[in-house]
């Protein structure tokens, strides 16, 4: 054996190895480390890795989230390829919601299985767990959209098995369209995006469908809201591994069956029914593999008012195919994605207590996307090269008017649009990685062409193990994005149209991260701490002009020049984001778990010569998840979220304004200095207890939880970023106390799950 300090003084020899699953498929993103040495790496897409080691006998250890770590001895030098096999971990509940087997300053993974520990509001939702990742926030307790690292909610992408999704939400964006049991994990990337995914400027949420276990798995979950089922069948008919996960809701039928009335005592309480389905078919061999993914989601809202075009509906379908082939050091990957997202709604919204006539909603959105890519990689002793080409064809048809919202919600978002757009985006990319002693350096370049203009995006990454327990990483890259949503989505309404941009928004991103993970014995206590600094400079970010900000809804409706010329009415602004996060993850041998993160951030835009915070800026964010075992089978969980209030525009004056044919009027709130005040901070505490026991081939989990246990009034009405800090229908909400009036109550619940 030799110490780490001796490494440089000796001649190193290269070993090559590959990690595969029990069914033989290659496993990427597996962390491979050498016991007693600093040397470590991560497997590539073909499951293989290489390490430079001094002569001697060493133990190589491979580990990945959700799998039992494995290790093997190797005598260096050797010409043999080291082969390691990872087996899925037993279905014991994991301790950590957020896990960082990889470099957590770059990628944070969430295991949906761990969501079972988190006290849930209604359905368990992978997107609802995202605020427990540092630098990620959600607007309030209702809206499910997220902001990554100070970015707007339309600046990150969501992918499933590497295929882009457009609207993976249910119930008007309240929660995600994924049965957690259908997913293997969710990776959140905000720094150091791969060169093949530079089309989102604040990061990506990459979902991975559940792969085949070594044994068949059946899961059935029943709740008052929905029923979901998962079937995992390895080597189905001897051909391929198949996973099918579906969910269907019936909450609307329950509401009607129980005779639950709306807040006005009427029968107008309507709730969308929804379904989602994920089908994953995979066939993996030593030299090649194929993977198909199908995603389907559909919401249907009961009709209301004078509807003549069927029930309001929204949803998405996506079919993705991936092929790879490996030939020695060479590997090819090809990907094809076909996606359609649509929203259709033609109806009037009736309020029986409102003497005013109903106003209609007219929505007909259809967004189609076809993406294809092919890449070639070569892995040598010290180098790795990747080159590829990608083509995206998108067609968006947006006919969209939300006149019913105009008197109820103050927002910067326009309420009408009628635009059809087409876009073809051709990109080529290349990347080279070089192992330099203990460090690894990557240089990448991507060029995208749209409408005759070419945009070049360079990238550099450096990872340096400082000690046996500390890893330092640095990344700098340029990102561009060729689409934008016109303003933040409005609470209680569908996502507004996505516009295609020929002049992309741009961002230069730099990050420095340090991960410290003390060496621990197998089965002992674990600890990991991560500190990250990130900075982003924005250019050409499309925002709505000031004339549409501040609740000028009547104006937006009447001034057709505003409505009909979108998106050219976008203003292009610059800005920046500066932030720092500190995350800690501790699990003791006795079963205690503490996971927390603090984020300090400032996100600002420069509009009309003024620097002002962006509407979703949260200066401070603190999250903590504490798990305490009670006896052998009970576990207590405490989940705490805090973030400082978002910027809002204060009210300078209150007047009256005409509505509806001039015969009626409502309050007119004249805005003060834009975004010069802060909304009240968000603060929520959830607690839960679980009891787990196993009978013959079955696992039972009894849970009891209390959401918002300390009854913090966080406010639900004031959720439109940047809007006037008032609820227009009632002026009493124009202050901090009023803003908190409508909030999530204390919600106790119990649950029972059975798995076999």
């Amino acid at each position, binding site marked *: 054996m030799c110490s780490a300090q001796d490494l440089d003084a000796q001649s190193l020899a290269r070993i090559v190895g590959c990690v595969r699953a029990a069914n033989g498929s290659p496993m990427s993103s597996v962390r491979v480390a050498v016991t007693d040495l600093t040397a470590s790496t991560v497997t590539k897409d073909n499951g293989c890795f290489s390490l430079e080691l001094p002569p001697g006998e060493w133990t190589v250890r491979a580990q990945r989230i959700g799998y039992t770590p494995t290790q093997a001895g190797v005598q260096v030098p050797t010409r043999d390829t080291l082969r390691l096999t990872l087996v899925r971990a037993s279905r014991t509940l994991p301790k950590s919601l957020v896990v960082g087997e990889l470099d957590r300053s770059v990628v944070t993974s969430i295991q949906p299985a761990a969501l079972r520990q988190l006290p849930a509001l209604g359905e368990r939702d992978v997107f609802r767990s995202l605020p427990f990742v540092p630098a990620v926030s959600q607007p309030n307790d209702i809206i499910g959209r997220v902001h990554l690292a100070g970015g707007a909610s339309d600046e990150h992408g969501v992918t499933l098995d590497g295929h882009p999704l457009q609207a993976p939400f249910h119930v008007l964006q309240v929660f995600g369209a994924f049965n957690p049991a259908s997913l293997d994990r969710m990776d959140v990337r905000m720094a150091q995006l791969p060169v093949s995914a530079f089309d989102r400027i604040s990061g990506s949420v990459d979902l991975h469908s559940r792969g085949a276990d070594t044994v068949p798995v059946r899961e059935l979950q029943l709740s008052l809201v929905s029923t979901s089922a998962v079937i995992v069948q390895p080597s189905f008919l001897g051909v391929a591994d198949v996973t099918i996960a579906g969910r269907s809701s019936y909450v609307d039928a329950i509401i009607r069956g129980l005779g639950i009335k709306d807040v006005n005592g009427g029968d107008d309480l309507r709730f969308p029914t929804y379904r989602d389905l994920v089908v994953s078919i995979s066939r993996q061999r030593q030299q090649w593999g194929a993977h198909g993914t199908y995603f389907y989601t559909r919401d249907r809202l009961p009709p209301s008012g*004078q*509807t*003549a*075009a069927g029930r309001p509906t929204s949803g998405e379908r996506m079919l993705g195919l991936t092929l790879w082939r490996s030939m020695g050091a060479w590997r090819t990957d090809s990907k094809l994605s076909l996606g359609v997202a649509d929203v259709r709604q033609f109806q009037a919204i009736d309020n029986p207590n409102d003497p*005013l*006539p109903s106003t*209609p909603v*007219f929505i007909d959105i259809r967004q189609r996307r076809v993406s294809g890519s092919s890449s070639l990689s070569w892995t040598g002793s010290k180098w790795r090269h990747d080159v590829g080409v990608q083509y995206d064809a998108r067609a968006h048809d947006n006919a969209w*008017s939300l*006149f019913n919202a105009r008197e109820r919600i103050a927002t910067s978002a326009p309420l*009408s649009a*009628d635009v059809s757009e087409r876009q073809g985006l051709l990109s080529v990319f290349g990347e080279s990685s070089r192992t330099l002693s203990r460090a690894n350096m990557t240089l990448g370049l991507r060029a995208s062409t749209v409408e005759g203009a070419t945009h070049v995006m360079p990238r550099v990454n450096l990872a340096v193990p400082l000690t046996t327990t500390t890893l330092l990483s640095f990344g700098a890259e340029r990102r561009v994005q060729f689409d934008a949503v016109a303003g933040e989505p409005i609470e209680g309404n569908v996502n507004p149209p996505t516009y295609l941009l020929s002049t992309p928004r741009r961002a230069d991103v730099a990050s420095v991260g340090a991960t410290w993970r003390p060496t621990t014995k197998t089965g002992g206590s674990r600890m990991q701490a991560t500190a990250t600094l990130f900075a982003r400079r924005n250019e050409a970010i499309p925002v709505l002009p000031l004339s549409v900000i*501040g*609740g*000028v809804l*009547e*104006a937006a*409706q*009447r001034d057709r020049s505003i*409505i009909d010329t979108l998106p050219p009415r976008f203003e292009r602004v610059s800005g920046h984001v500066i932030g720092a996060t500190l995350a800690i993850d501790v699990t003791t041998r006795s079963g205690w778990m503490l996971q927390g993160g603090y984020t300090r951030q400032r996100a600002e835009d420069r509009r009309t010569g003024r620097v002002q915070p962006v509407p979703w800026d949260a*200066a*401070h964010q*603190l999250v903590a998840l504490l798990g305490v075992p009670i006896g052998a089978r009970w576990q207590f969980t405490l989940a705490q979220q805090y973030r*400082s*209030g978002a910027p809002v525009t*204060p*009210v*300078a*004056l*209150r*007047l*009256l*304004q*005409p509505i*509806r*044919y*001039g*015969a*009626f*009027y409502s*309050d007119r*709130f*004249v*805005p*003060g*200095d834009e975004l*010069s*005040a*802060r*909304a*009240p*901070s968000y*603060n929520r505490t959830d607690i839960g207890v679980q009891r787990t026991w196993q009978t013959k081939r079955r696992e039972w989990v009894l849970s009891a939880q209390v959401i918002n246990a300390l009854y913090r009034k966080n406010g639900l009405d004031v959720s439109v970023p940047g809007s006037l*800090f008032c609820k227009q229908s009632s*002026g009493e909400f*124009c*202050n*901090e106390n*009023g*803003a908190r009036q409508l909030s999530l109550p204390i919600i106790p619940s119990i649950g029972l799950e059975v798995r076999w």
Partner: protein
Amino acid sequence: MAVCLVSLGCGASVPLTVASNEAMVYSVLAIDAPFQEYNGVPIVVANTGDPRLAVVLKPAERIVVRRQRDRALLNVLPFTPPPGSRVGYNYALAESTTVQGLGWRDLRPGETYELEVQTQGRSVTGRTTIPERPVLRVVYGTTIDTVFWSRSSTAAAYESDYRSASDTSMLVPRVSEPTAVYVTAVDQNYAAYAQDHRLLRSGIIGAFGLFGSSTTASITITPPAPTR
């Protein structure tokens, strides 16, 4: 920052609302608006006060509305909202002609009307010309019908319930039963006030608020009979 962390809350640095003490007068002379019998033509004389609270109604020492052409007075009646009522106005035009003056049913398109108010030591004046009534017609389509209307020289803008195809037409999704649709022509004061949310006054001098007018026209869309 440490204080924020310990207290788990950082207060707003800028007040969310700013109190003011300004006179406000609001009235729109509306003709043929649906459900107009609820309010008639109200006139609000008030003080802006604290934005967190509703505007504070204030008495007028003198309030006059007259037709410019012949100086004919309109009958302005004080109105006391019933206790607990959500109605928020303190004056209204009488419905019909009496010896005290004309009523709101006597308002006519094309006529100009003047307002004079003495309140809170201020003299407030205003003037508006009621726009001509648009003439509507329907062109039936397969799934969407189009309603067209005539352009009026005295109308500054039009308000429609449905998505517009131009400034004189709107698209109406096929309805399942006969449905009345409405188009409102508004005067210059009303249009300017609605299109600029930072505009504090339009059509009046001496106070915040609006003195405008509108004329509404309607047409009934009849769905085609089902084919066999």
